[in-house]
């Protein structure tokens, strides 16, 4: 592996860290690509090559993981949690949550209590990676297509 490729890996990691740190804020691909100092198209392609999933998918599942955490650990309403973790609409949150986790946020909350483990361990180990509840995996061809061109839920929030 060339030193240039190592440097590119390191910058992709920095961008991924930015998503872990600022998932609750408005994030879009250009903003995160800027963290890595690469163009948007290059960023999406390279991030996927380095981490095996698109930046959109990574962020979506970070947000869902944080929502699962808040559902387990707090009494906040589903609507509050939706906005706490960076989703722009309750509809997008509910749909995304169900497709990834396989049940509604309210139903998930009923069946799960707090996990006694450090927060960093939970973030690293409980982010849903593959479909956990029998939902469909993202079709391979579409993963690099239109769906990955923006962070859908954040874009909705930004739209007038």
């Amino acid at each position, binding site marked *: *592996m060339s030193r240039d*490729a*190592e*440097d590119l*890996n*390191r910058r*992709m*990691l*920095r961008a*991924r*860290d930015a998503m*872990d*740190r600022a998932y609750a804020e408005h994030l879009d691909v250009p903003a995160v690509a800027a963290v890595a100092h690469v163009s948007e198209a290059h960023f999406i392609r390279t991030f996927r090559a*380095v*981490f095996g999933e698109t930046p959109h998918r990574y962020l979506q599942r970070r947000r869902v993981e944080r929502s699962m955490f808040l559902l387990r650990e707090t009494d906040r309403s589903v609507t509050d949690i939706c906005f706490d973790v960076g989703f722009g609409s309750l509809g997008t949150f509910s749909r995304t949550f169900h497709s990834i986790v396989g049940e509604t946020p309210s139903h998930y909350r009923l069946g799960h209590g707090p996990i006694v483990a*450090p*927060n*960093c361990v939970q973030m690293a180990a409980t982010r849903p990676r593959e479909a956990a509840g029998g939902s469909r995996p993202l079709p391979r061809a579409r993963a690099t297509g239109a769906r990955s061109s923006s962070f859908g839920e954040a874009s909705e929030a930004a739209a007038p």
Partner: protein
Amino acid sequence: MITSLQVATIYVLDKDEALDFYVNKLGLEKGSDVKQGDYRWLTVRVPGEGGTEISLEQPGAPLHDEATTERLRELVTKGAMSGLVFTTDDARALYDTLKERGVADFTQEPTDHFYGTDMGLRDPFGNAIRILERKTASAATA
């Protein structure tokens, strides 16, 4: 029975750069720095403790063949290798100190949890570092 953890190893991509970061930025002290031919045994440790030495190991000959070296370097830069967890008596003060020393790669600003206040950063190569200020009273046994 085992009585202590003497040495733990992390992979770094450059020993000089690692030494500068772990000593001058993070505030650890140099332990061993011994050259044997081309090999350099380099460790750092928490100051003022007879505790664990952290060996800063660089992938490469004679430890690793070329392909293994490249793979290890790749994994380090992806953040896929193991990290370190330290404790501090004041996470927020340390955070300010680290920023003053030029540390920019924070993965998490100081955040309160039921077990204490922690923060996260990365070393120059991608290794994860977490620093925890334990909650004092009830968490003393944790």
